[in-house]
């Protein structure tokens, strides 16, 4: 029984790991960084690349605030090690808009007031983009099911579902109302 609780649990023990030189492809740009092997993709984005749009809400894969796209699929970046995602195409919230032109789902989030504090929002939007692409935005019930990995403590779920439904209907025409 250890006599103390550290705030964060270390991921390795023993001798100091040597830093690794890696190349991360994020939003179409290659970044050469030297990271601790224990560094998560989320911490690499936030602490090394200063791409702080991906949020840390738990570090445990439970809240979804850190969701990014990896080769088009949504993943919890807090559960991915940076050194293991070399060569993958990573898209974060910063890479969604085309210059000043917001992604349709970003615009729908503003229009629908699908957030309050905004902290879960980047993860919700990234997850929502994938949810629509996957064809999982056919009904409010389906959206709720496939967005269940993203928590919102402000309680904006109704508006989040509406924003995703609006965007799905506008972009695919396949979603059913309800």
């Amino acid at each position, binding site marked *: *029984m250890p*006599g*103390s*609780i*550290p*705030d*964060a*649990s*270390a*991921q390795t*023990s023993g001798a*100091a790991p040597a830093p690794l030189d890696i190349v991360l492809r994020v939003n179409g740009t290659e970044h050469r960084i030297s990271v*601790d092997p*224990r560094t998560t993709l989320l*911490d690499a984005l*936030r*602490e090394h690349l200063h791409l*702080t*749009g991906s*949020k*840390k*809400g*738990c*570090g*445990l894969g*439970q*809240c*979804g605030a850190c969701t990014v796209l990896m080769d088009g699929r949504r993943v919890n970046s807090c559960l991915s090690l940076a050194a293991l995602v070399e060569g993958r195409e990573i898209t974060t*919230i*910063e890479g*969604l808009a085309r210059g000043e032109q*917001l992604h349709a789902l*970003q*615009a729908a*989030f*503003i*229009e629908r*007031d699908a*957030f*309050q*504090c*905004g*902290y*879960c929002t*980047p993860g919700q939007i990234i997850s929502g983009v994938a949810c629509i692409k996957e064809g999982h935005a056919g009904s409010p019930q389906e959206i*709720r*099911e496939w*967005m*269940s990995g*993203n*928590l*919102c*403590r*402000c*309680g*904006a*779920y*109704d*508006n989040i*579902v509406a924003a995703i439904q609006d965007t799905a209907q506008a972009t695919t025409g396949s979603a059913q109302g309800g």
Partner: protein
Amino acid sequence: MITAVIGQPLSRIDGRQKVTGGATYAAEFDVPNVAHGSIVRSTIANGRIASIDSAAAEKAPGVIAVLTYRNAPRLAYRKHHGTTDPSVGERLHVLQDDRVNHQGDPIALVVAETLEQASYAATLVRVTYAPESGATNISRVKLVLPTQDQTDQGSTPPPDRPRGDPKGALARAAVKVDNTYVIPRENHNPIELHATIAAWDGDRLTLWDKTQWVDGAADEIAAVFGIPPENIRVISPFVGGAFGSGLRAWSHVTLGALGARVTGRPVKIMLSRRAMYYGTGYRPDTIQRVALGASREGHLNAIVHDAYHETSTYEEYTEALLAATRFLYSCPNVYTRDRLARLNVHTPTWMRAPGEASGVFALECAMDELAVALNMDPIELRLRNEPEQDEFKKLPFSSRSTKECYRIGAERFGWSRRNPEPRSMRDGRLLIGWGMAAATYPMNFAPASAVARLLPDGTAEVASASSDIGTGTWTSMTQVAAEALGLPIERVKFTLGDTRLPKTPPEGGSMTMASVGSAVQAACRKAREEALARGGANDLQEAMRRIGQPVEASVDSKPGDESQRFSMHAFGAVFVEVAVDPDLGETRVRRMVGAYGAGRIINPKTSRSQCIGGMIGGIGMALMEHCGRPTQWARHQRQSCRIRGAGARRCSAGHGLDFRRGARSAREPAWGEGPRRAPHRGRRSGDQQRRLPRDRQAHPRITCHAG
């Protein structure tokens, strides 16, 4: 002429930043040369540190410093009680002695070059304890009255002084109900983890902090370090939710500043989700007996509301638990009492609708049970007990919208189709329940300041130190300013979240629009009048062009004597449909309608989001959230801190945050404490208790009517 901007459902001004990742929260400021701090916490609830060995941690790669009570500088800890601190007791002093006050009490701080190095080195700190017996079970301690009752902003008479003869009236009542309502501890759990970055420049400190009150954080840390508050700048433009947890500057803020001072480096501390249960407050475990006595016609003639809740051993946390009971209904005989159970836990704090949400829950459950006992419609029962005035303060209400809220809510919900007979409504095999409750929250108003600066190009900069914790302050203040200035909204830039801006009260207690909004409005009006007078024009743009230089006006606004003349509250009514599986007890909230009379609505869009967010918070509090009680296996459960429940799926409009595995350890018994004994004698027997259930599913469709 500019059309009115107040009352327009404008989208959030900060929306673009929030949807693009451009909003910068506390831990995200790019402070050069920043080091990372990781906090080590105690595993006992009460006792002393017998030994603490940081040698291995100090030798670990990247470690700059390991601070414990043995080597940490002694801090001033000047006496300071901000308005959000308990007025009785003394805050935790961190790393000042070998004392352990609660499970998760900070006992060491590791500062290292990287987050990974700090986190790892924190696991190398070895600690042994001299544990002492402690109390973590609310049922096993002597209950005490608060030293100084603060439950009604200090204006309350002694907490156990009755109105009329409640005991006698209850004994004589034709119909009575008498039950106990148990609310388990609930954590705020904002999605953003609490975080602070501290950087010293000589004797001046900058804190980028997650806070609901930049001025309060500066005052507290100034008192801790014994420096003038003016030496501290707190920056907090975005807050990723707080729900009350950001109203005090907790010990991790002190530790960040301490680490930065010792190492000479800026230090960043971001709490883990687990640590959010150890030192950022919570809604306390609260146990309430409510006895109501009424005539057969449903007129209340006795209310007894006798409560107790947990607090720490070092501070007396009290909240407005009983405030609404004293005025919500007309009743000549009322007894209210709130007592404290002092436990070896960390201090609870304000959590969304602090006090009122807990107290009204018990009172409104009791009213429903009385309605059943009387065989009377719950709305009719409430209407029969509408007071003419606040019978506690003996003041007229500034407004009282309960009747309208009942009417509009009932219409929207379809209340008239309700069959009041218990177990009479079904959907297939599911039992359907329709229920309603009144809601109320006081109209708080505190002194606040703002500055408005008109520029020659016809734009304006308006500023106040306030926060936007998701409430929409940024947007609504811009609307207030634009209307007062008579400028289009895109010409007005509002700034907040910085101690360099004019002082404000905390963003809490639903007081921001009344307080800060009044200051913003007054500053803008003053600037406009001055500009028009100086420029000699009726048109502001023309006046500013003529003046050719900025015109600035500052205002310190404060409440008048309204609170001496009126009892001021917002009111509401909430209607809910639940489906209950008769075999499994699974409960789903299927729809919910809220009607609120909350004064003048500045922005219907963000206000609606606030109302719905509050209703969803209520679902979570009622059905899903619970910070576990101490159990024999708590220590092992702690190892798997995970979020229970779900978000959008199980709770279509609700949320399902429930970090209770991790939370359980916060109520872990101290070493040597035996199994639980029988409930405290002050409590009713189990079958008469109404516990907030948990692990139920919610699936609501929520609508809200605010006005």
